[in-house]
């Protein structure tokens, strides 16, 4: 159906879903019932951002060692998108979306669950528009979740540096 195809093209776009999720994360930075709750949210934002960075690095390393062709290279598919030239496995979009969602989930369950919905939709969408296999999405999701757990570990290892950064930002009225 053309309307579903158009919707899926929009959702699968390089910018639409990830910018939407990033705006929710930006909103979360300033949100919280009280200063303690806000600080928890801000730590979750740190975790998500570091997680996204780690996820992109893991995807780049995987791509350097394993070049899986895209579905449209092997099969006749009705492609709804442009032809990406990077390897298919793991999905970079899924890795980023799941790193965002799971990083936030570690600090704020409600918003984390909320962000997991667009992450799942973005993953499904990339298969629907013909640029990934389902296993690429699964791999990307695992990379994203592992990266956010790694980010949590990084934040704990580098403590009290994150606390000092947050305190300084609070003094400058940025947090």
């Amino acid at each position: 159906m053309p309307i579903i195809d158009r919707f899926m093209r929009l959702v699968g776009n390089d910018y639409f879903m990830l910018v939407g999720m990033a705006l929710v994360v930006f909103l979360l930075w300033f949100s919280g019932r009280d200063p303690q709750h806000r600080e928890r949210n801000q730590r979750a934002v740190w975790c998500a951002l570091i997680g996204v960075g780690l996820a992109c690095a893991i995807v780049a390393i995987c791509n350097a060692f394993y070049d899986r062709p895209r579905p449209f290279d092997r099969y006749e598919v009705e492609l709804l998108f442009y032809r990406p030239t990077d390897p298919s496995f793991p999905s970079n979009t899924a890795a980023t979306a799941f790193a965002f969602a799971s990083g936030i989930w570690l600090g704020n369950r409600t918003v984390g669950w909320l962000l997991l919905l667009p992450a799942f939709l973005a993953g499904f969408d990339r298969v629907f528009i013909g640029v990934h296999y389902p296993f690429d999405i699964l791999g990307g999701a695992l990379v994203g979740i592992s990266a956010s757990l790694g980010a949590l570990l990084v934040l704990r290892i580098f403590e009290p540096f994150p606390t000092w950064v947050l305190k300084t930002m609070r003094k400058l009225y940025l947090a």
Partner: protein
Amino acid sequence: MTQLAVEYFFLIFISCCGVLQFVAARRKLRGLSFFPRAISGYLFAVLAIAGAFCWFFISDNRHVPGLEGSEVFALFIAGSLASFIFTASISSVINRKLRLSMGQDNPSEEPGLDSLKRMTYFQAIAGYFRRKGGEQSNP
């Protein structure tokens, strides 16, 4: 590529301005708000975010290879920082008499975003440096 980068930057900048007005309206941060009434802040937020997305996705074909992941990330950070600086500057000018109407500082209050309920960002920063200067002259 450069045009796409500039347009993407403005998508982020305008959307983040909308988010900041939503935050200012929701948390009653009068020092960060462009509007005296919360409803105007919410309306601005919806129009800014929806308008920026519509403009970005309708104005050109976005289903083409474009920015790299690292460029997208860097432009998001730049756009969100620019939106905060813009919002803080404009709201500080609009609400420059806010502190006079809200009374004096509470020295026991912790600094942070909540201080922007009763003073503008520039007033808050000026107060911070005044206090810091006072601490250094009276150790």
